[in-house]
């Protein structure tokens, strides 16, 4: 669909306050413009609906100093500005050294060209890739319409097997599972001031037609990744149809903190298989406080997919995800040996 970009006004905000004020002033007619790698495509394809108009005002946030750069936190963690590009994130030595899962996730996004423009904030806020949502002819629930077309229709690729609700798309962000495995916190600014949201609570559950808890005129300022307990290792695995430039059919982020002869803490987060990044708490419970033996790892992988309910065409994701969880955990054990 090769439409031209519709006309829009471009406002370059110099501060968080200016961005928030401009967004508040124009309501749903305004959107945040960071890298634009998702937004501009949505605009060209005229993806819209009641309550979701094609934006006419774009508020550029790339010049806001607070959104730039990766800074040290006092506890040894990192504060990542929302406008940091995926390109910068994947190769920052502090990210690579302390949070490998995050660097791996950033490197797995799309293509080098997209990563050079796409930002952390944008990656978390991107809209889903259900082909009905992305096609102007199907007024689906997320666009203010009355039905989900994927449920009775085509649902082979970017669709969920866990946490199904009103909408059955699978959340496309590669960063989200990694950040969730690393217990990140999201700082948000809006007309009512600032707040910090643990990333576990940043994404909405299955009954919502929007993906994040951002209210009107709110923007992400930064993402804090806290210093993990000593000895923590993390890992990210993504499975695609082809070698690059594709969202996950299934992906897994794992992080574990070792104790004497066991894992004290473990986080297992699944991507591409639920409408939000999915914490496999049942799987975590199998491993937390125990030695990660082969049979426990297998049991955890089974538990991660317990309750999975496939749609008509995506049942293969259950076997696939179970295999990925098992491999990620096995690799994590090996990295700690």
């Amino acid at each position, binding site marked *: *669909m090769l439409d031209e970009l519709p006309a829009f006004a471009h406002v370059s905000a110099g501060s968080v306050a200016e961005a928030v004020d401009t967004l508040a002033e124009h309501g749903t007619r305004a959107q945040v413009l960071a890298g634009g790698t998702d937004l501009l495509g949505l605009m060209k394809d005229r993806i819209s609906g009641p309550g979701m108009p094609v934006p006419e005002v774009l508020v550029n946030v790339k010049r806001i100093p607070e959104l730039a750069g990766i800074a040290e936190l006092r506890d040894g963690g990192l504060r990542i500005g929302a406008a940091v590009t995926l390109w910068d994130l994947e190769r920052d030595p502090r990210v690579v050294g302390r949070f490998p899962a995050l660097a791996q996730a950033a490197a797995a996004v799309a293509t080098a060209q997209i990563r050079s423009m796409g930002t952390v904030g944008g990656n978390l806020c991107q809209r889903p*890739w259900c*082909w*009905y949502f992305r*096609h102007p*002819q*199907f007024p689906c629930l997320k666009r203010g319409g009355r039905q989900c*077309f994927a449920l*009775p*229709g*085509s649902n*082979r*690729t970017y669709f969920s097997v866990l946490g199904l609700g009103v909408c059955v798309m699978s959340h496309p962000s590669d960063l989200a599972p990694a950040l969730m495995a690393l217990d990140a916190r999201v700082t948000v600014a809006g007309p009512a001031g600032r707040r910090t949201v643990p990333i576990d609570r940043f994404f909405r559950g299955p009954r919502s037609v929007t993906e994040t808890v951002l209210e009107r005129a709110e923007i992400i300022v930064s993402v804090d990744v806290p210093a993990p307990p000593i000895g923590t290792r993390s890992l990210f695995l993504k*499975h695609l*149809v*082809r*070698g*690059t*430039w*594709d969202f996950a*059919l299934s992906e897994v982020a794992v992080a574990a903190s070792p104790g004497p002869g066991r894992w004290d803490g473990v986080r297992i987060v699944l991507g591409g298989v639920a409408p939000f990044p999915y914490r496999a708490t049942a799987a975590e419970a199998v491993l937390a406080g125990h030695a990660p033996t082969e049979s426990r790892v297998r049991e955890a992988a089974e538990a991660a997919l317990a309750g999975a309910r496939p749609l008509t065409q*995506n*049942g*293969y994701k259950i*076997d*696939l995800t179970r*295999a*990925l969880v098992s*491999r990620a955990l096995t690799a994590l054990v090996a990295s700690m040996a």
Partner: protein
Amino acid sequence: MRLGARRDGTLTAIDAEIVLDIGSGSLYAGRYAMTLHQISELYRCPSVRVRIVAVYTNTTPTGPQRGVLDPIATFSTEAAIDDLAAHLGMDPLALRMKNYAEDFQGLDDTTPALPYTSKHLDACLAAVADAIGWSERDRMRAEARGPVRRGGQLTILPMIAAEELGLPPERIHIHHGDTDGTHYAPSSHASRITSEVGPAVLQAAAQVRGRLCELVAARLEVSPLDLVAAEERIYVRGVPERGMTFTAACALMAEPEIRATGSRAPNPDDVIFRLFGAHGAEVEVDVETGELRVLRIVCSHDIGRPINPKLVESQQYGGAVMGLGYGLYEEAELDGKSGVLLTPDVHQYRVPTALETPVIEARNVEREDAFYPYSAKPVGEAPLVGVMPAVRNAIRHALDLGIDTLPITPARILEALAARKKTADAR
């Protein structure tokens, strides 16, 4: 697709039924009958039936692309042959050679049996088998697992003229694609330009050379028949110093330019013109995730003598990547209720990237064929046709499982494995 065969592998029957969804409109008209040739000419078989039904549906209109219906016809036949080989406990290559057809066998009462202008498919199969390591495959499996630059005609035609005139191709300027100044040629399709327009260019260039040789012969007081044009000179055969440069020969012209025309007659009707080839593939399948890696593609085409070997190779590389896209990654998804195309861009319609491109090796069979100018057979489309059957059959060898729904994505591999496990568990 059903095959009949004797226990020793001799084919007795091929019965194909093709249902073609041609969308809301089709440019296939008149081409369906090609499938009968494409299926029946692969092997020696006394009894072949092809039924093809084209169905209009309320979806996007369709038309032929590279190979037209040959990729479908060849995929079906070659998949069935490997399945037959497995059923008989026979090596798939041996089964193919057992049913090798030297000549065109004729088609019902309308087309008699005739020889091909040349056919070296057996050499192609041998070359591919050697290149892919056919004899090792069971052990390996057991051990784990120009204006407009379009195609090749822009360089081929100057090369034909250059060859005739004894000049380097850079001194030939081809003026094409201009409806004001040029004639209409056959469209660039069906890999035809080299063999359809080539002879005409050759004739015209030969006439130009003839006229120049007359001028030079008069100046040197020799017969024009004693002259050769080569290396940018026109000189007496065997006596290179007795002659002049091409440029000097042109200076002898009284007329402002030499105009010549060439033409090409229709094909003779007592031979059959075909291009044959073979492909081999080596793959790796991860049975837990369904991930498929194509490690190598090898091919061998019976190309006559290539005018430009680099262009032949590039058709073969391009054909391999296109075949992998066709068979493994590209899927045009239609919404079942509305017929709307859900993958209208190259993002969700996954064209292969550099990361999907394996090692591709070509070992062509080069032989004379007097029916083509310079023995150059056209090789635009054939390099696509054999790729997907080879990959499908390689997957079959790896998993002992034939998967016939394209594209063969990780999802389809996992589903096929799960279905087989379910059947086995039920027993």
